[in-house]
């Protein structure tokens, strides 16, 4: 525990804006912990880390961590992150988004960031609901589930962020959960180290909004659900209907910023500067 206390003091803006906004049982704190442990494990200087966040509960993470932090507009965090990374490729840019952020209003930016393969790590905190807005359905809400805006059950099919981002061309795509905290640490560490665009989807329970409306007795039952309904990729059998977790894609193609640097170098060599 001493180690944890040390990390809190080192990486959180402990004199600012606490207590935090996360509800009891919320998975976001665990993901935040993973993010901090990953940065710590990689020994990244705090000045070189930029956390760019969207709007909502996950967006608040940017306030708490003692890095360069930008709290942007709903869904557009990746566009800001793209500008920051291209302006200063030395920076480690981590983009924190919720499922509404990343898959709904920001869906276009997500696929294009993946297509460009820009060296940004996207952390998609998927609680399958709009939490801060009060429990409305999101593009990740499972079909049939109820929410404030799908009182009769959602008719729509949810996005699979992993498949979407893989198809769009990202280098590194993984899924973890806030139940599997150690694994999440590894995934995020891995993602940050990878060149090009990396995305880690973290399934993260929202007991207050999602759980309450979908007959989860308490927060613990939501974590039990995560444990029971997910399966590590390597253990997955063909007819398994559980949600696979693990690393889906890990390529080493150069990121956009590296290709841009190459272009500059070649133009200079040709005397076009």
């Amino acid at each position, binding site marked *: 525990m001493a180690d944890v206390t040390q990390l809190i003091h080192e990486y959180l803006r402990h004199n600012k804006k606490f207590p935090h906004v996360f509800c009891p049982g919320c998975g976001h704190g665990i993901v935040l912990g993973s993010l901090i442990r990953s940065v710590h494990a990689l020994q990244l200087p705090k000045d070189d880390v930029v956390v760019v966040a969207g709007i909502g509960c996950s967006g608040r993470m940017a306030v708490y961590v003692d890095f360069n932090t930008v709290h*942007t*507009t709903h869904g557009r965090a990746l*566009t800001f992150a793209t500008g*920051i990374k*291209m302006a*200063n490729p030395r*920076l480690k840019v981590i983009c924190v988004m919720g499922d509404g952020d990343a898959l709904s209003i920001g869906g276009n930016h997500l696929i294009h960031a993946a297509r460009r393969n820009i060296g940004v790590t996207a952390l998609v905190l998927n609680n399958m609901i709009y939490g801060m807005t009060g429990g409305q359905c999101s593009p990740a809400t499972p079909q049939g589930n109820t929410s404030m805006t799908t009182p009769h059950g959602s008719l729509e099919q949810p996005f699979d962020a992993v498949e979407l981002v893989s198809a769009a061309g990202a280098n590194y795509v993984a899924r973890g959960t806030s139940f599997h905290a150690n694994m999440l640490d590894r995934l995020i560490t891995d993602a940050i180290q990878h060149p090009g665009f990396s995305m880690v989807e973290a399934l993260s329970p929202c007991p207050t909004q999602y759980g309450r409306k979908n007959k989860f007795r308490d927060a613990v039952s939501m974590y039990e659900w995560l444990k029971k309904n997910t399966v590590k990729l390597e253990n997955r059998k063909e007819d398994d209907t559980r949600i696979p977790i693990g690393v889906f894609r890990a390529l080493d193609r150069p990121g956009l910023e590296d290709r841009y640097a190459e272009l500059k170098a070649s133009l200079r060599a040709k005397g076009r*500067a």
Partner: protein
Amino acid sequence: MPNMNTRRKRVEVFAQGNEAIAEGALLAGCSFFGGYPITPSTEIMEVMSQRLPPSEDGVFIQMEDEIASMGAIIGASLAGRKAMTATSGPGFSLMQEHIGYACMVEAPLVVVNVMRGGPSTGLPTSPAQGDVQMARWGTHGDHSIIVLSASTVQECLEMTVVAFNMAEKYRTPVILLVDEVTAHTREKITIPYRDELEILSRVTPTVPPEWFKPFAEATRAVPAMAPIGSGYRIHVTGLTHDQMGFPTSRPDEVNEAMKRMFRKIDQFYGDIMMVDEFMTDDAEVAVLAYGSVARSARYAVEQARARGVKAGLLTLKTLFPFPRPAVEKLCRRCKHVLVPEMNMGQISREVKRVNNGYTRVRTLNRVDGQIITPSEILKAIL
């Protein structure tokens, strides 16, 4: 350093307005362009895509849409770059939320809007001046902003440099409004040398990071700005924030922050307000115009003078904050003032507000995608 102007031959080129804007941006030190193509602004982007990658630290990126373009240039600006985007009406509409964000986080950047007929997709290749009030009030919330215009190709270059300077000086987005005629007219321009120009850059902090207040009250009400990655680990948010940059809803802190953001622009009105006066000294009839209309108006004023009518022209180069003193002076003195514009009266509305009953404000409006000709203006003057 000695002034080299006299010994160097100035570079003269035959260029269109859009190319001149790109040239001005590069002279002003723009090293980041993020954009999305849209008629009639696209040539700005095309020139930047040619010129930025070979330059020392130039970054050009074509984003997936205009919302992303604005996001990218705000990010680049926060990371210490002089950044720009260029668009036209429909794209400008999409950018509005992020223009508000840029106002709130006080990110210096330049947005060029080459106006086309509207609303909606309107008339893509025809001139209009319909985005004047949107440039001022397009985003939600109450805010101050600087809006400039240009009426000749040479002015396109010059006003772009001014736009960057003002953006850096006042830490604010600056909108440059051009109309399609100005953007696509080709004429000879002189490209100044960089050392002939006054190029301003944002003030960066000199205090150690632990003393730094990123949104503090400051001289000129413009706080110093630390680029991301420079060792000042600040928080930037579109939420109303305190002097440290953290969200607040305390009325005294909100009030202070909002008032400072207005004050930083309003108190330097004299510096921001740019107008050109032509034969206004003894004018009895004044034409107030901007953009390509000002060129028609100038010819009309000359024609009117030839016929013995004491006409004058006030060309507005700054549209917002509205150049009240210059306009008021003419309203007080002239028998009537005429405001020709390619919209239903977006600047004449400001003129009427400033006029306050001094004289008669006449309007001449065209919204059919056609330019306003000198003879139309002359007829209205006489």
